[in-house]
């Protein structure tokens, strides 16, 4: 039983398909990834993490989200294809797993079709309602600040009562 040794470390595509393994279909007949591959992927993942943090300190407006998600997607596909061995898995397993992203896509599609069709909802809440609280130094019941907070709460309540 030396099939595994044939599929030994360092050989990126060390499929141990000996006649014996194929005849009996042993577990040891599967792909073994080389150490340099795993180390390389880990380093790329670290670099991409630093990149995500770095990019977040710049303001690209709405593109920040797209950039962050694009980097995350690259990281995710590296983890899926190499760490999770999807590159070397059977077709049926690949179809099953990757189809989940298809259904997730549908979920996003319909949720966002709904949200964007209701443009007023986005507009109405897009602005924050900051209070002028710059002179507040303490906090607790009975203080001037707490009264201010109560006032704000009432304002909110009244707003809702009016059917806002």
């Amino acid at each position, binding site marked *: *039983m030396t099939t*595994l040794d044939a599929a*030994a*470390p360092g050989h990126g595509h060390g499929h141990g398909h000996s006649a014996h393994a194929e005849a*009996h*279909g*042993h*577990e*040891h*007949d599967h792909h*073994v*990834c080389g*150490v340099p591959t*795993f180390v390389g992927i*880990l380093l790329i*993942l*670290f670099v991409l*993490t630093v990149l*995500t*943090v770095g990019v*977040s300190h710049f303001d690209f407006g709405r593109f*920040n*989200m797209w*950039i*962050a*998600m694009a*980097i*995350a997607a690259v990281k*995710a596909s590296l*983890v*899926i294809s*190499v*760490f*999770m061995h999807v590159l070397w*898995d*059977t077709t*049926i*397993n690949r179809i*099953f*797993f990757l*189809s*989940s*992203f298809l259904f*997730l896509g549908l*979920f*996003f599609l319909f*949720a*966002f079709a709904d*949200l964007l069709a209701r443009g007023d909802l*986005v507009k109405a*809440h*897009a602005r*924050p*309602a*900051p*209070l002028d*609280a710059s002179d507040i130094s303490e*906090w607790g019941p009975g203080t001037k*600040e707490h009264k201010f907070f109560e006032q*704000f709460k009432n304002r909110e309540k009244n707003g809702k009562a009016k059917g806002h």
Partner: protein
Amino acid sequence: MSHAGHTVPAPAGFVPHTVAHHFESQEQEYQSAKLGFWLFLVTEILLFGGLFVAYFYYHTVHHDAFSIGGKQLSWKLGTTNTAVLLFSSFTMAMGVRSAQLSQKKAMLTYLVLTFLCACGFLVVKYFEYSAKIDHGLGAGSMFHPHDPQLLGYEGLSMFFALYWTMTGIHGFHVLCGMVVIAWLIWRGAKGELHAKHYMPVDIVGLYWHLVDLIWIFLFPLLYLVP
């Protein structure tokens, strides 16, 4: 020799594996387990998928509140935890590889390292969580921000509700991962995991990588709020 009910000879010094009687061959047993586990991972993707849809929905509606919310979290601790989880994914992958090669000592070392990374992740999370509680930034009815600057941002409580739900469910997965990794260490120490039977390591590995995968998206969305 790999037929149902048959015991597959193990490498020297290891415990042989017996194929369950309802499987035709060990390969069938392995592939069934794998397919079943991939299906479970699909349900995991959809579970977190619902939360991600909720996040993006409310991020669109309450963009500014989410931006302020993200600034309340420590991106340094978030980055640390990202690095810890990525490294643990690497050690897990190495553990699976060692099992495939019947390298018992290496496998146990990598599994213990993965377990320790999981502990480290949860310790960092504990400090983050207690800081949030201290600042009144809990979820739902526990959301009473002490910082008056945070008052008046409609949707900020939604950000923290999502923060607690998403990282909470993710943290629970980390905890479950620790239990199954400990189980692997126990079985591995007994010599039951080797080239002729590494399926349990392979499957726990898949689970652990999924936990990492979810975090890869949670980290920028919560800590860096784009």
